[in-house]
């Protein structure tokens, strides 16, 4: 019976074979499946066993398969050489972190960094002290980058369409693209990138443009206003950048420029600015800052004279200032219809500028039109204080001459059908460009769209190929900072999921011989060296090693006379013929103005999935997790709005729904909307509101004619600080310079009542006594301390709902208070870490002794002993204690474990925590000192907040040593402690904030001299 059946089966197989299929995709006979399955082992060589199959071959393959079967469960093997520690490398001590110099770029900002790694895991980024743009500090974004590196939502796999693909498959695709580009010399090929500050990247792009002459390169930075050279800004065409000498300026006028926080070089500027804000006895040592801006910025909050002005009124204010300085040659009598406050501000600023010729500075805002830049440039030149400008691309030989086109040009070309292949490198125009829908539609006309980026984004969704890009901490590279200083970016870890750096992706496209980023970067600098960068007879290897170690490529940049000369010879626009600038009239005040700005913490939206930045309070509003329409109290009253009210803002037929937030000192009839929120595709849920739909080209930074409609309900906002009125309490001492210099203040400080305690005096122990001093005069309120502390101390992110309920975990918070007239308030910042009280109220009330005092004066938290009564928090008058109401620390996500600082406990649910003065750093230094036998020196121990502070407002050290910096800071007349009358004896003390508004009478006397 068996035999005929077998025959039957055989017959039927021949006629109609049953279709066995592996996946539904194969069943449907998709082309993509066929490719993918055939290319599965593309990188391993040939697909099939060659030649006739012998018994031996089969056996050897069997053995190999069995041997490799065990490996198949592992991740892909690293392609580069990695030697395991057969012998422990010298200097690599487990438990002792290593630091590597590197650098990061954000828009046009480049920060030199030191990456701290623990056994190969990068855990923290610090500023590189020898890098002129960092000076040892960092921006908030650099602190957050470490979390981005370990973000489990980062793009991890090559995707073709929706399917998973491989780098091998892409290599084949790149080969095909290259062939087609070679055929028609690159016609229709476009490359879209963000701003490129990397010389080797520019060289690679230059190579593409050289090989395929018809190809075009476009750049787009969502958080930057493109200022065409034609705007008349003599120094602003990309990529040249002005370098201001803030430290030399006695009078600084900011025309909506957030130069302390939001522009390239901000950290250095903030350092220079703060160096002139600590009065040292003489009147002249302190600078004076005038700021005119629509909404309080970090810079505006430090101003001595701040003017709340609509964004579209800034050009006329600039014009009025120009006129007031006597520079307008054509229409001197034009009455710019400014209101009284603006006119007064302009008059004072002009008088002050004029009095301080050669020591004054006008800084135009990055989001102001070219006209403001032009006026500012002319004023600076007339005042004899033109900024030093560095066209940094001149400092590198290759790639310097490559010019990029704009995104608008690309869109036009795409719409015209002139683009058939588009490669987008880590930029997201489909979300962040004005008229984003137009980008989306235009892209659909491109035949082949490729995207490489850290994340899958709104743009990547539109692309055929999605290539996961390596983080800068995983790649080699090089970056040049605002002043031309270049750094080598060196990797600290292998790409976590086999992502590739942008340089390698370009190399695949170019088919170049150098395939790894390390080789490309090194080869670039070798060529630079060959071009004479190092001078005669220098050893490249030595240069390379030194550059890697220092994080700065040493060469004569600052004194590059050739460059300086070239800058000076640029058409200055001050000749008589060009002198006519049509001074703008102030626009009508009644019309509602919309102002778009990058979010202070979200930037352009690229950090959407970064919980640290989401939860970092906005420096002024303290808003976390999302955005709001910011407006003034007067405008809100006129529109009948209260904080949190939902409104519909309409412009040009498009609407958004957004809650409002009232900010004192905001310009009337102006609404500021922050970009970078409300992203659809960013890992988690949508946070905040995308305001981008209201923007279109030409009016992408400010516009008029918006309508606003109250919707009648509230939208929840996660506000950290609900109360910004100091209630007449002595929390922030603010003196004018005159007051500070007068003897009375010093005297009153001495008139302290005797404070008695029921408890016996604590014995003073031998050894160091830790203390901290925070200079409120130097604090600009940027919030870097908060996020650095979060990175250092494994502080959990709690989410919007928990912030709303008052459960934010930050160990050092930034209190911002407004004082005086709500229309023109004084704005003050106060970082509040644990005060480490000597008579700590928290310690007496803990029933289990989980918080206790150390001999070195630290108020310590013993997590293991804490049962969570939270009495300590209630009894803390400074409310600096934070409680784990839930299991906030993520024990599950494996990639986040790599980020954590191994020297700091990860706290569990139900445990109190708080600032420890970075006790792990103190102990590490003590151990080092003990091992080496050298005593601890002042400044050897740096807390995370102190290290990151751009203005060095925070000083930490041993108060038992009268020579230490912290003792000296505390000895000054400006020193005070918070809530001194409670006799808690805080170890953290503050230095009073000094403002320098100047003497009104003297101003009036000198008004006449003011004209230039």
């Amino acid at each position, binding site marked *: 019976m068996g035999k005929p059946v077998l025959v039957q089966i055989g017959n039927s197989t021949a006629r109609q074979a049953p279709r066995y299929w592996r996946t539904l995709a194969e069943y449907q006979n998709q082309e993509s499946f066929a490719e993918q399955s055939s290319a599965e082992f593309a990188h391993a060589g040939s697909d099939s066993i060659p030649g006739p199959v012998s018994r031996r071959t089969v056996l050897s393959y069997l053995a190999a398969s069995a041997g490799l079967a065990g490996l198949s469960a592992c991740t892909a093997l690293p392609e580069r050489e990695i030697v395991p520690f057969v012998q422990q490398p010298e200097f690599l001590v487990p438990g002792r972190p290593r630091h590597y110099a590197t650098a990061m770029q954000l828009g046009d900002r480049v920060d030199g960094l030191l990456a701290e790694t623990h056994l190969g895991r990068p855990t923290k980024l610090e500023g590189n002290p020898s890098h002129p743009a960092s000076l040892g500090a960092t921006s908030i974004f650099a602190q957050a980058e470490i979390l981005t590196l370990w973000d489990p939502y980062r793009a991890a796999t090559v995707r073709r369409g929706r399917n998973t693909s491989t780098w091998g498959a892409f290599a084949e695709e790149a080969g095909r693209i290259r062939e087609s580009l070679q055929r028609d010399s690159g016609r229709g090929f476009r490359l879209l990138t963000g701003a490129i500050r990397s010389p080797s990247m520019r060289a690679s792009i230059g190579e593409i443009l050289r090989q395929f002459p018809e190809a075009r390169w476009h750049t787009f930075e969502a958080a930057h206003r493109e200022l065409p050279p034609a705007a008349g800004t003599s120094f602003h065409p990309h990529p040249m950048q002005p370098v201001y000498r803030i430290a030399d300026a006695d009078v600084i006028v900011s025309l909506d420029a957030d130069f302390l926080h939001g522009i390239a070089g901000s950290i250095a500027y903030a350092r220079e600015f703060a160096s002139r804000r600590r009065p040292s006895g003489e009147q002249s040592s302190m600078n004076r800052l005038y700021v005119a801006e629509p909404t309080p910025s970090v810079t505006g909050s430090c101003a001595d004279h701040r003017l709340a002005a609509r964004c579209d009124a800034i050009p006329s204010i600039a014009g009025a200032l120009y006129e007031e300085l006597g520079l307008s040659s054509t229409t001197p009598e034009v009455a710019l219809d400014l209101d009284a406050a603006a006119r007064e501000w302009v008059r004072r600023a002009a008088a002050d500028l004029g009095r301080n010729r050669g020591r004054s500075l006008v800084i135009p805002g990055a989001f102001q039109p070219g006209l403001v830049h032009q006026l500012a440039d002319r004023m600076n030149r007339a005042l004899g204080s033109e900024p030093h400008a560095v066209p940094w691309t001149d400092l590198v030989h290759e790639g310097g001459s490559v010019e990029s086109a704009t995104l608008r040009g690309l869109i036009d070309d795409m719409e015209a059908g002139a683009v058939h292949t588009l490669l987008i490198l880590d930029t997201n125009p489909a979300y962040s460009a004005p008229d984003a829908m137009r980008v989306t539609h235009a892209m659909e006309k491109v035949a082949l769209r490729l995207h490489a980026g850290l994340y899958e984004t709104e743009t990547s969704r539109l692309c055929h190929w999605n290539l996961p890009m390596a983080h800068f901490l995983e790649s080699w590279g090089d970056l040049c900072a605002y002043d031309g200083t270049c750094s080598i970016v060196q990797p600290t870890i292998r790409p976590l999921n086999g992502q590739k750096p942008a340089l390698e992706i370009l190399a695949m496209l170019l088919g170049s011989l150098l395939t790894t980023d390390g080789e490309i970067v090194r080869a670039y600098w070798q060529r630079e060296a060959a071009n004479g960068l190092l001078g005669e007879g220098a050893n490249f290897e030595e240069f390379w090693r030194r550059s890697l170690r220092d994080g700065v490529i040493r060469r004569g940049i600052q004194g590059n006379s050739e460059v300086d000369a070239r800058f000076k010879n640029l058409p200055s626009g001050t000749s008589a013929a060009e002198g006519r600038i049509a001074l703008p009239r102030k626009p009508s005040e009644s019309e509602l103005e919309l102002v778009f700005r990058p979010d202070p913490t979200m930037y352009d939206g690229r950090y959407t999935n970064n919980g640290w930045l989401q939860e970092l309070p906005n420096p002024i509003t303290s808003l976390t997790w999302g955005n709001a329409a910011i407006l003034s109290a007067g405008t809100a009253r006129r529109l009948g709005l209260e904080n949190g009210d939902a409104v519909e803002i309409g412009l040009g037929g498009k609407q958004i729904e957004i809650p409002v937030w009232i900010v004192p000192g905001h310009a009337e009839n102006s609404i500021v909307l922050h970009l970078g929120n409300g992203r659809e595709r960013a890992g988690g849920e949508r946070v905040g509101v995308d305001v981008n739909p209201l923007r279109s080209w030409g009016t992408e930074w400010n516009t008029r004619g918006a309508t606003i409609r109250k919707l009648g309900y509230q939208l929840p906002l996660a506000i950290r600080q609900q*109360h910004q009125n*100091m209630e007449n309490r002595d929390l922030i001492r603010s003196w004018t310079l005159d007051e500070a210099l007068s003897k009375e203040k010093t005297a009153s400080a001495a008139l302290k009542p005797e404070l008695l305690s029921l408890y016996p005096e604590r014995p003073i122990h031998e050894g160091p006594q830790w203390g901290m001093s925070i200079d409120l005069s130097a604090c600009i309120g940027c919030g870097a301390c908060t996020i650095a502390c979060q990175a250092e101390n494994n502080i959990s992110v709690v989410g919007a709902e928990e912030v709303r309920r008052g459960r934010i975990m930050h160990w050092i918070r930034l209190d911002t208070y407004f004082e005086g007239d709500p229309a023109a308030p004084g704005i003050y910042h106060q970082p509040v870490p644990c005060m480490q009280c000597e008579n700590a109220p928290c310690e007496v009330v803990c029933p289990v002794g989980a918080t206790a005092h150390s001999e070195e004066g630290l108020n310590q938290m013993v997590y293991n002993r804490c*049962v969570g009564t939270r009495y300590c928090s209630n*009894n803390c008058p400074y409310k600096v204690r934070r409680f784990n*109401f839930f299991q906030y620390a993520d024990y599950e996500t494996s990639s986040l474990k790599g980020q954590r600082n191994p020297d700091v406990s990860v706290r569990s649910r*139900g445990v109190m925590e708080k600032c420890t003065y970075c006790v792990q750093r103190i102990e590490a230094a003590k151990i080092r000192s003990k091992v080496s036998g050298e005593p601890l020196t002042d400044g050897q121990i740096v807390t995370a907040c102190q290290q990151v502070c751009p203005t060095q407002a925070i000083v930490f050290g041993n108060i038992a040593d009268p020579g230490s910096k912290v003792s000296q800071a505390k000895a000054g007349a400006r020193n005070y402690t918070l809530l001194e009358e409670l006799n808690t004896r805080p170890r953290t003390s503050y230095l009073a904030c000094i403002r320098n508004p100047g003497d009104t009478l003297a101003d009036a006397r000198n008004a006449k001299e003011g004209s230039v």
Partner: protein
Amino acid sequence: MPVLRQLDPLERPSVIGENVRYDDVNLRIAGIVTAPTPKGWLIGFGVAFLFVMLFMAAVTYLFARGIGIWGVNVPVAWGFAIVNFVWWIGIGHAGTLISAILLLLHQEWRTSINRFTEAMTLFAVACAGVFPILHLGRPWFFYWLFPYPSEMQIWPQFRSPLMWDVFAVSTYGTVSLLFWYVGLIPDFATMRDLARTRGKQMLWGVLALGWRGSAHHWKQYQMAYLLLAGLATPLVVSVHSIVSLDFSVGIVPGWHSTIFPPYFVAGAIFSGFAMVVTLILPIRHFYHLEDFITIRHLDNMAKILLVTGLIVGYGYLMETFIAWYSGNIFERFMVLNRILGPYWWVWALVVICNVMTPQVFWSKRMRVNLPVLFAASLAINVGMWVERYMIVVVSLHRDFMPGAWGMYSGTIWDWSTLLGTFGLFLALLFLFIRGVPMLSMAELRELVPSPRKERK
């Protein structure tokens, strides 16, 4: 045994009904226990039990997720749990006061309500006692608050008032239980004697600890009872004083005040008597105990409510005065913030319920008007809970640094836990009413006018 003086019944209303005989006492009070379960009891207990289940659900979820399911935050790190704790502990005070102090003061009218109020004390302390544990971040380590010989030689931190709380509340619970049980012994014997079946005789017999009613027994018993009363007396003052130190040791404006101990004790008695009235009026009605709990009892309790209410009102007044008189800006702000701040309604409720409501008891007519009495007692119960809310939450939400101020509101889990303890309390009370003679038969028998006198 309490010394009983026969008062002229014409002078004051009697503390026991005119026609009550010895037999009536036993039969009517023990009858409540021996009679078949009334339908009303089943319904009442069923509803209370549902709330016990709510409590169990809320606590289970709390243990699973963490304290974050409640509304607590920074700055308001204590919320409902502490409010409930203080409130329940306060309620217990009436029982101890009636049992111990009024006994020592020879207030014989206490006799008919002491058993009941002692039980109320016990259950209130049980309800209160769960909160300090539930509110811990890591409740599984609650035993670290006890001074036990730990293998790591770690002791609690004795300067902390929370530590004192542990001793105060556990002592209070223990003494209340003993006092209640000792008072029950003669009645257990009566129950044993009345029991018909062997099983019940065994059960009651064991509980009666071999009581035979001999003169010797009575002598020892009276001494023991008096001694326990003496032990319990300081607890009336100490427990809530120590609970109040949780606050007054703290430096928070609105907490840091020397007035707290007396003010808290008065408040505790105030709320405790209010709760006694709230509970006893329906029981008196449903179990027809008008002969044992007479108008005179209610009148006396209303007077106590008036007096303690006035003390509490004085406390509020002094707090406000001292805030102004001290010149301390934080204290001043605290008072102004209570009255005019975002929690103004809390302050308004406190004044209406705790200060204004008891003023009706100046009138004798109101004191003996049962609906008025019941309504007032409910208002005082609410008022005293809200007062603790004001002290805990409103003081914390705006303390020293405006930059750290916040708001607080209870979540659904806060409310569930509070309602759950109502259920727990009532369920225990129902079991008590059904299972144990709720009035002291032994003591009531002594109040019954002597038969000889009656025969005259």
